[in-house]
């Protein structure tokens, strides 16, 4: 999706402003949104391949006007409403109705189970997948695709030539999973691009940008 979240290479956003001794949260509601987004997927299975498209489909004007956890809140709400587990009526009235029949949900996760699961993680690694097409040292050209669905290949790096520098092994393919086409596990590679390949002759060719890309993002160069 070529929307505003894909902002690498844009001008106009001003200086990076750091806060001294910043804490993880800036308000209590941020704590709760973070925790909700972490706990809900135990009961209502979804992962980043769903949360990220939900964030990315927030219109650009509102995306830019929102703080980070406001985006999470909106995306989470959209997912729950989309699955019929929450309605705008309930949100407006504050009155919960029973869950609809036929939507599979699991019990609310308990504290100990949540912490144990977070400590294990939710690995995208898979044992098997598409055969690898590339090896370290290969020159590749990234695809020139502009899907209206989720993709991990940013606009600035499309149709560009880079070098495979590492094979990270087989992982689920977020582009496919994010559009509901299943995990399609395949190799993920670190690809190095000289800066002048991406940004033209004004950039320093000796500097590099590294992106992790899936096999399906690449053509032989």
């Amino acid at each position, binding site marked *: 999706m070529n929307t505003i979240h894909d902002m690498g290479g844009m001008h106009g956003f001003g200086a990076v*402003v750091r806060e001294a001794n910043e804490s993880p949260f800036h308000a209590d*509601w941020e704590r709760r949104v973070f925790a909700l987004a972490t706990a809900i997927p135990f009961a209502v299975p979804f992962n980043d391949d769903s949360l990220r498209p939900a964030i990315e489909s927030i219109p650009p004007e509102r995306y830019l006007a929102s703080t980070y956890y406001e985006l999470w809140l909106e995306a989470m709400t959209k997912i729950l409403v989309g699955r019929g587990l929450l309605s705008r009526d309930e949100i407006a009235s504050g009155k919960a109705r029973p869950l609809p029949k036929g939507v599979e949900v699991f019990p609310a996760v*308990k504290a100990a189970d949540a912490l144990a699961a977070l400590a294990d993680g939710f690995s995208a690694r898979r044992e098997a997948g598409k055969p690898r097409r590339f090896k370290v040292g290969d020159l590749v050209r990234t695809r020139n695709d502009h899907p209206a669905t989720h993709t991990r290949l940013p606009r600035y790096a499309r149709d560009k030539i880079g070098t495979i520098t590492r094979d990270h092994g087989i992982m689920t393919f977020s582009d496919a999973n994010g559009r509901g086409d299943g995990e399609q596990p395949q190799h*993920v590679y670190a690809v190095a691009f000289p800066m002048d390949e991406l*940004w033209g002759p004004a950039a320093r060719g*000796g500097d590099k940008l590294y*992106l992790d890309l899936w096999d399906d993002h690449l053509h032989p160069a």
Partner: protein
Amino acid sequence: MAVVLRAMSDHHDHHRRAGRSDIELRVRAMEQLLVEKGLVDPMALDAIVDQYETKVGPRNGARVVARAWTDTAYKRRLLDDATAAIRELCYGGSQGEQMVVVENTPAVHNVVVCTLCSCYPWPVLGLPPVWYKSAPYRSRVVMDPRGVLAEMGLRVPDTTELRVWDSNAELRYMVLPRRPAGTEGLHEDALAALVTRDGMIGVAAV
């Protein structure tokens, strides 16, 4: 809130401040609904907040760095298979399932970003700061890394190759900073105390 508000125009500052108490109420109502529906347990929410507010943070990454500075074999394992080497110190899990550590040297400086989102190695660095998730950092550091780093106070010499890691996939990156000069006599704990979060993102020297 300071950093968010400072980055915005007056126009929107005003708009936002007015909305703040409203959002506290909305989120509380949302949590209440989901509790009543049996989808979340408030005690689990408390535990998750506590975990990432008080236990998981850049002190973890600093211990990894200090170990690598003092133990050559560990450093080799860390650069070779960061996920496993970090597990040796009992860190790992969500948003750090596949870790990569990249080493700063006089010849190479590394800096990490996620342009599409806010991917960040939680087990070693905790939750990302606002600036890391902000439009200015995400938009600019991939196109003008030397300019952004200079603004942030880090001048990278012309003779050093700059490597920007845009971590949009399932790998999470941490920078192994250069050990500061004059720290030869220090023990691991004292070294860890020198290591900053910004140093492990690559936007500052240690």
